[in-house]
């Protein structure tokens, strides 16, 4: 996994509550068997008009926001399906950090597995950042995971909390499976002590 240490980039406001993973990546694009290449389909129904041309009303199509790498979003971002295609699509489109008052659990978790940083900030801070990003297309933010701060060119805007284990994995680009396999002996010990009679999937009589 690519480490995430600090990111400086354009912030785009997406002022909609409960953005679900069906909006982030609609189901017709879930049939690919690769992890990459989902970017062009991210926010498909909002991003394109029926004739396939970019929808000028959608924020990421507007001047100053096309190169955004940070999304400032509203509450409960990433609700719904567990599809990891959602963070894959955002990442493939260039979004590496998402700031919001709250996230849905599975999406939040999936971001960390892909070198992306979801940051929970108070509603008022998000409102403030959203206003700035809306008023100033091309508004640049720095999301610094090492120092746990959000800053713009005038200085620090906010600080944030993040689970220390997740932070460490992101900063160092650690692979969860590799970490867990360091404890394979514990797994084997646990496995050997499991009670008899638990279900197995191999064909039943």
């Amino acid at each position, binding site marked *: 996994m690519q480490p995430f240490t600090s990111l400086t980039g354009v912030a785009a406001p997406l002022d*909609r509550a409960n953005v679900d993973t069906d*909006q982030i990546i609609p*189901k017709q694009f879930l049939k690919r068997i690769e992890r990459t290449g989902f970017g062009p389909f991210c926010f498909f129904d909002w991003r394109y008009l029926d004739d396939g041309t970019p929808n000028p009303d959608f924020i990421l199509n507007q001047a100053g926001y096309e190169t955004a790498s940070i999304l400032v979003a509203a509450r409960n971002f990433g609700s719904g399906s*567990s599809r990891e295609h959602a963070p894959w699509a955002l990442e493939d489109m260039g979004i590496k950090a998402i700031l919001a008052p709250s996230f849905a659990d*599975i999406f939040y978790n999936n971001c960390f597995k892909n070198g992306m940083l979801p940051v929970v900030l108070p509603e008022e801070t998000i409102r403030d950042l959203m206003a700035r990003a809306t008023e100033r297309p091309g508004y640049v933010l720095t999301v610094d995971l090492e120092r746990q701060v959000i800053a713009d060119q005038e200085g620090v805007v906010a600080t944030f909390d993040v689970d220390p*284990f997740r932070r460490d994995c992101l900063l160092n680009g650690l692979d969860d499976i590799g970490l867990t396999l360091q404890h394979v002996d514990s797994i084997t010990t646990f496995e050997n002590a499991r009670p008899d009679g638990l*279900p197995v999937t191999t064909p039943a009589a």
Partner: protein
Amino acid sequence: MSSPRTLFEKIWSSHVVREAPGEPALLYVDLHLVHEVTSPQAFEGLRMSGRRVRRPDLTVATMDHNVPTTDGPVEDPVSQQQMDALATNCAEFGVPLYDLHSPRQGIVHVIGPELGLTQPGTTIVCGDSHTSTHGAMGALAFGIGTSEVEHVLATQTLLQAKPRTMEVRVDGALSTGVTAKDIILSVIGRIGTAGGTGQVLEYTGSAIRALSMEGRMTVCNMSIEGGARAGMVAPDETTFRYLEGRPHAPQGKAFERAVAAWQLLPSDTGATYDRVEILDASWIVPHVTWGTNPGMVVPVTGRVPDPAAAADDTERRATERALEYMGLTAGTAIEDIPIDRVFLGSCTNGRIEDLRAAAGIIRGRTVSKRVSAMVVPGSVKVKWQAEAEGLDKIFLAAGFEWRNAGCSMCLGMNPDILAPGERCASTSNRNFEGRQGKGGRTHLVSPQMAVAAAIAGHFVDVRAWAGDA
């Protein structure tokens, strides 16, 4: 003596492989369910790192999201490729697979319980958010992403921060025509779509005890729509009767021993939860969603809400946007909303009892001329059972289409989708924008409400029909 523990705490603590300060717990996974959409990248990851599936005997796969529900070949070559990839991966890694030709094929959350694989006290994961369904059996079950699927395939464990708990107690008796679906829709209406974030819900109370296993699965299934990754119901006689004799359930003496162990699982008297919500079942009425998430829901006797009444700016804008997408005007009576399509099926309401209850509403009536309606059983076994009971004939005579098993129009990855602007009464779990097809308008309801709407051509209060013979 140890302090009283909840059902969740008992399962959690008996599955912790390793705990260390500042790290999430390493949890053992008893059952890993796999389907074609969220697994190909995980198997590819294993292949690239030269890893194997640690416990293929605790892993099982089926094809459900992409499958056509009509007879004949898979027309979409990309869907076919995804199903082929699953078959290849299962063969290469030794994972049992119930493919399109298997009599055990079906929606992953329907076949797990049906085969007796879903058992009390176990931990179950799947790359699918509706894995919460299996909690109805007294299991700890939740959806995971594809990276976690790979982690479980490789290690049979999952890194998990311990969630908080919420008791959702539903006491009293449901009125005739009011169902498990209405319980969960009213719970989500109460707590909101993020109300359960970071929590495991345990449903308790006399109304939950009175539900069948199918009803409990409907309730647990939609826990995720309230933001909770898992929902649970303590196992009891209903659970044991459901499991007895199923292919993967313990048999004979082993079943008796298992029941004795399962009886120790329910939350101890005096166990506490981080939060408690209490509902009175006798007040619950049939519910209909009006908006673009499952929390946007009102009783069938209600009206489309007015954005001006929203609690704050964010909610007001969300309401306005939802009304625009749904093509609805504030103040419209729910019963005055005409519908074009009906979808009866999904991991929420595609089980045999759902089909029985739905067929029971028909009583010789036929689907409105303005409505196109389809029934998609949740599994091959549900389909065969329904046919053995003659339910297919009842649906067909009323003008419903009778399809093959799969996820179908719940998410429209196969050809079953809404056209732009079409309005659907659906027994599924999500009414998100475009979920059932771009521009499609979904209203979530119970199976009985869906059938009544199909016949009337608009939403009706099925309680008025439930009593007539």
